[in-house]
């Protein structure tokens, strides 16, 4: 079991939550905008605390209301690729990539896989949307995560840029054993990338 998640959060009248158990590969959280897909990712990452439920990945408990387990984000080993990338503007691409890394050992290999090796000395603000997205994926991968959280990784990219990122994600899915939880509102994306699809 890769993901074993059942979380629920009540904010005013709105109830946000998801419950799913999925195996290896890419789990796609699919649903229309505003249904709370990103909130579910944030609850798994430890950035938002659910009201109740649990979140386990590869058998490791990250959050369990009943067992009073609530790991802080830095101990959850999540590689979170945010929709708005959240690259550190005051660090060059190389320093962004290495922020969560133990050493530089996997830098060259990861940069080559994501086709960002030529960007290492650039500042984040000079990157295109697709480049920034791939750097964000690289930064998450180099932090040695146990699973990946991907929030709309293809959103607001033109077709060519989206295709670059899509191919990088497919290489990642087929080349690593990292469980991935991917949020999208695009059925084609869900179809192409997902091993399991969860509708919200």
């Amino acid at each position, binding site marked *: 079991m890769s993901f074993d998640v059942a979380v629920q959060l009540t904010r005013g009248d709105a109830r946000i939550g998801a419950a799913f158990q999925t195996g290896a590969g890419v789990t796609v959280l699919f649903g229309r905008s505003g249904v709370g897909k990103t909130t579910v990712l944030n609850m798994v990452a430890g*950035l938002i605390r659910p009201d109740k439920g649990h979140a386990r990945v590869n058998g490791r408990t990250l959050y369990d209301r009943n067992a009073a387990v609530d790991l802080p984000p*830095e101990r959850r080993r999540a590689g979170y690729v945010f929709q708005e990338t959240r690259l550190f503007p*005051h660090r060059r691409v190389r320093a962004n990539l290495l922020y969560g890394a133990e050493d530089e050992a996997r830098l060259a290999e990861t940069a080559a896989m994501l086709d960002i090796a030529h960007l290492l000395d650039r500042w984040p603000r000079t990157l295109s949307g697709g480049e920034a997205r791939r750097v964000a994926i690289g930064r998450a991968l180099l932090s040695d995560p146990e699973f990946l959280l991907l929030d709309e990784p293809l959103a607001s990219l033109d077709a060519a840029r989206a295709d670059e990122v899509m191919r990088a994600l497919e290489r990642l899915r087929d080349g690593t054993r990292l469980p991935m939880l991917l949020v999208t509102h695009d059925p084609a994306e869900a179809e192409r990338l997902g091993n399991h699809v969860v509708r919200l």
Partner: protein
Amino acid sequence: MTPDEWAIVRLTLLVGGVAVAATLPLAFALALLLARGRFPGKLLVDGLVHLPLVVPPVVTGWVLLLAFAPAGPLGRLLDAWFGTSVLFRWTGAAIAAGVMALPLMVRAIRLSIEAVDRRLEQAARTLGAGPWRAFGTVTLPLSLPGVLAAAVLGFARAIGEFGATITFVSAVPGETETLPLAIYSALQRPGGEAIVWRLSAISVALALVALVASEALARRAGRGTHVL
């Protein structure tokens, strides 16, 4: 400039420099508390910090005098711990200048901390950084231009301090008589106009340099980007 004028300028820069250096950590801590903290009485802390900005400086100086007088609470502590007093000393002038500069510095730093996207710190946390490392490697460097701007602005305010200083530590030539106090006392002397002109020109030049530097730093901070 004559040796006397040099001595006044040196004393002014010393008082302003020490005031800002000593106030900056406190200003940063207060700015962080006001920008990020959620606690009862926050409005009161905010108000107290801003008091020196709105209260007549003479009143601030008088309160300092009460506190640091030999029988005052802080004066007694200083005497008991260090066997010293700040009354009529340049250290007292620096305290007065620091207190008057504090609200301006807190405001500038607070704005720069609030301008940093907290979601960047969240990203740092998911990458394995604890709360302190996330703050030190993300928010602190990104708010640094604002901190520098606060230092320059506070320095400009400190070297111009008059009312609180003269009330608190008086105008002792060579000890507490900074530029503004020297200008005032020259004005009281017959034939002091030439000195007033020269000291005033020096004051304007110092303040202008500080303001232009502060504005340049603030603009850089306002762009949300950071040039190292």
